[in-house]
């Protein structure tokens, strides 16, 4: 079936469902949804879960492949799509549906930018403790679908731990819900866990209910420099064994500070040019520890950490530092279009071996390594930056990834979140996982039997 035929077949039906103004098929309508070089035939923007259901029902009937878009911050992650017939954008569904500060729960339509919801919660000194990148544009549904997280994951967990209810539309056009609006609930299967991190492959998320938390009124950040990775990790062990309960515990590799600051004008995104090539000690690892509490509590932190602290930050400077840490990946990609970014899931004792594996694999393949990550949960963000004098071939990325994965201790998984599209055909961006893949596929078949959702992009 050629693209033109698909458009001819369903365009009028789609227009009837969502209104003509919300269906696009010209180049300008669809070019913005380019995913790894694949452009959708039609872009459609439903205004309600019922409209989503009607769109998916139609797509399922004609076996059209559908991808879902929110704020477009993570669309390049995953395999190259086989094709995209319909790009379904959730951004018209963007209201707060219910918020009762006294109950500490909020219900939000999936297309709402996360920061807008957060601003509303801030008015009541509450928040959903998620500090992933690009929260101004990333939508609530998109963050859930990609299980996005930032440094706050150390203390609070991530979307799976905050989400208490979800409404979604299945591939065959059923509006379904799981959970509810109360913080404790075991009625029915935990569909919130299933959809968190499902990358649009199981259903289209249309509404999310969160439990929210009181927002700390005072925090302080202690930046602790170390001469080696080993020393930094020994310090981490000391923190684990102490009574301290930090809100964030982030490890920062020697080259990462390059990307934790104002990016400045990007002249050539293919060109690696450190801004301070000699000023930076190449071996300095840092741990950034963020604590919340009263003056007494923060004074205790200062006492316990003692001489390890290089700098303490508060207020605007502190906020800025954490924004930069959250924004590490987009900063790297803004500077180096062809950089590769890997996310890891590790037992916490594997953090050291993993960072060593990164440095080793990077140097073997002539790439520059930089990393930030949650030292307390093993969720690291690793960047491999190509040198402009020696642009890597597509195969070189693939070889670097397999060398890196080969050095990981057992029980670890590492997915390639970003890399040039040309490299993706040479290896599996998702890699192996300790979780049984045949059961993941069985779950996928159970709710999307025709495989119309995000075909070719996720593990299932």
């Amino acid at each position, binding site marked *: 079936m050629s693209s033109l035929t698909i458009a001819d077949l369903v365009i009028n039906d789609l227009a009837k469902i969502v209104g003509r103004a919300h269906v696009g098929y010209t180049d300008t309508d669809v070019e913005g949804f380019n995913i790894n070089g694949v452009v959708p035939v039609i872009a459609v923007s439903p205004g309600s879960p019922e409209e989503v259901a009607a769109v998916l029902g139609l797509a399922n009937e004609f076996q059209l492949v559908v991808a879902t878009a929110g704020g477009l911050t993570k669309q390049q992650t995953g395999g190259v799509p086989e094709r995209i017939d319909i790009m379904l954008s959730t951004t018209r569904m963007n209201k707060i549906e219910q918020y009762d500060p*006294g*109950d*500490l729960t909020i219900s939000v339509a999936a297309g709402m930018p996360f920061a807008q919801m957060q601003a509303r919660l801030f008015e009541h*000194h509450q928040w959903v403790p998620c500090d992933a990148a690009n929260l101004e544009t990333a939508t609530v549904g998109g963050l859930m679908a990609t*299980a996005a997280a930032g440094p706050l994951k150390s203390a609070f967990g991530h979307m*799976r*731990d905050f989400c208490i209810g979800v409404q979604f539309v*299945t591939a065959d056009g*059923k509006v*379904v819900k*799981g959970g*509810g*609006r*109360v*913080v*404790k*609930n*075991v*009625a*029915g*299967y*935990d*569909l919130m*866990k*299933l959809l*968190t*991190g499902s990358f649009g492959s199981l259903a289209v998320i249309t509404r999310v209910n969160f439990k929210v938390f*009181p*927002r700390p*009124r005072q925090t302080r950040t202690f930046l602790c420099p170390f001469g080696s990775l080993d020393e930094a990790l020994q310090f981490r062990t000391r923190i*684990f064994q102490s*009574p*301290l309960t930090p809100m964030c515990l982030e490890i920062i590799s020697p080259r990462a500070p390059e990307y934790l600051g104002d990016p400045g004008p990007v002249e050539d995104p293919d060109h690696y040019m450190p801004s301070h090539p000699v000023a930076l000690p190449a071996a300095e690892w840092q741990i950034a520890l963020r604590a919340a*509490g*009263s003056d*007494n*509590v923060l004074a*205790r932190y200062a006492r316990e950490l003692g001489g390890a602290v290089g700098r303490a930050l508060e207020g605007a400077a502190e906020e800025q530092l954490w924004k930069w840490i959250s924004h590490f990946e987009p900063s790297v990609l803004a500077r180096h279009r062809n950089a590769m970014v890997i996310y890891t*899931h*590790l*037992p*916490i*004792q594997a953090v050291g071996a993993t960072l060593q594996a990164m440095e080793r694999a990077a140097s073997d393949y002539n790439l520059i390594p930089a990393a930030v990550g949650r030292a307390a*949960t*093993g969720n690291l963000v690793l960047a491999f930056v190509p040198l402009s004098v020696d642009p890597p071939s597509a195969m070189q990325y693939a070889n670097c990834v397999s060398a890196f994965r080969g050095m990981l201790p057992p*029980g670890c*998984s590492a997915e390639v979140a970003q890399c040039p599209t040309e490299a993706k055909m040479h290896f599996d961006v*998702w*890699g192996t*996982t*300790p*979780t049984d893949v*045949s*059961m*993941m596929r069985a*779950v996928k078949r*159970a*709710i999307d039997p025709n495989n119309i959702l995000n075909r070719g992009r996720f*593990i*299932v």
Partner: protein
Amino acid sequence: MDSSILRQLKKIAGKDAVLDRQEELMLYEYDAGVDKHRPGAVIFPQNAQQVSQIMRLASEKKVPVVPRGAGTGLSGGAIARREAIVLSLARMNKILEIDTANQRAVVQPGVVNLELSNATAKYGYYYAPDPSSQKACTIGGNVAENSGGPHTLALGVTVNHVTGLEVVLPDGRIVEFGGKAQDSTGLDLTGFFVGSEGTMGVVTKITVKLTKLPEHVTTLLGIYNTVEDAANTVVAITQSGVTPAALEMLDGWMVRCVEANVHAGYPEDAAAVLLIELEGMREAVEEQAEAVSAVCMQQKAREVRRARDEKQRQLLWLGRKTAFGAVGRVSPSYYTQDGVIPRTKVPYTLAEIERISKKYGLIIGNVFHAGDGNLHPLILFDSRDPQQAENSRKAAKEIMACCLKFGGSITGEHGVGLEKIGLMTAMFTEDDLEVMVRLRNAFNPESILNPQKMIPDLHFCREITGPLPKAKVEPVGGIPV
């Protein structure tokens, strides 16, 4: 039970690992809930390979299998409905590994919840979820039910503490989900499996998070002259920005009942008490204790006491954790509810329960996890009096209807099981349930494993309730208790 099946079961697990005499099977008729059915056989496998062989045999012969932990469940999840095999995990009770460096433990499903905390305390760690039955209930059972407990307010329920599972599927395949890492690439089947009430697979190995023991713990007892003041305090503490480790409430009737049983030190003339626990760094705990005391007094507490020492603190908790047993001493039967409501609705709901209690002339005691809105009204009745038994069911339905009216849930931590299966249609639409059935079928296509639990047979429930509403309260009628 077919004698050839019994013979094969004995061959798999050993002669001394299979029960089939009626007097032995009687012991496996019930759990801690209200339903009762006698199974066809009970088998005690000792490893995952035996579980796999049992499942393969059962699938081949189409015999239902019901996994069972300690039988402390309150929703009938471990009751074997027909001629079924009860698969007891009681003999798979080893702690396989305590890995404090990675803050994990790997256990077999039959390990008793409290034993794990006791085993790890010497390293400065514990296992956080603490159901009231923690001295008896098993971690495998906790995984099946996604169990809660008083201390899950700040730290989360079972699913927030499980990172890896080894599961035997109904066809006998042994599969792994997750591991020691916090999460892994791909779908979160670990999280999805927790709370599936034995309808997807049999857990044979569990990797759990170990939590650092807090530096300091303190317990406050807020004493109130009215239930309403206590309920308002719950709302006020939630809004104050302090998240206690636990926030429990007992009403006056429960207080007297508990005091008669264990002398926990609750004042017998109180209309309600709040048990508030704060834990963490010493400085933070001290400040929070002051802040919480002030909130209690603003909300008209008669008095706020603070446990002087660990002994007194343990005594206060003993009162809470033995509350259900205390009720058993004074009433021939009681019916435990597990409704959840938004926290701001606690005062109104308690008033509503009081009204229902008067309407049916039944004592309803309240002891519950106030901090997360998880109510446990205990309806007292004498099961020998048919009128009282009938009224207790009606009262329970009205309480559930009240929870649902406020957008709450029919179960916060006890599970759906057999007991609340008829209520599922009051919370979920036919489409919601149909998707759950499809997901279950991906794991358990022929419903060999724990059949007719948790998710109602859609055809059946349509017949008894008529056309399904979009999650409205009314069709609660006709629910078997």
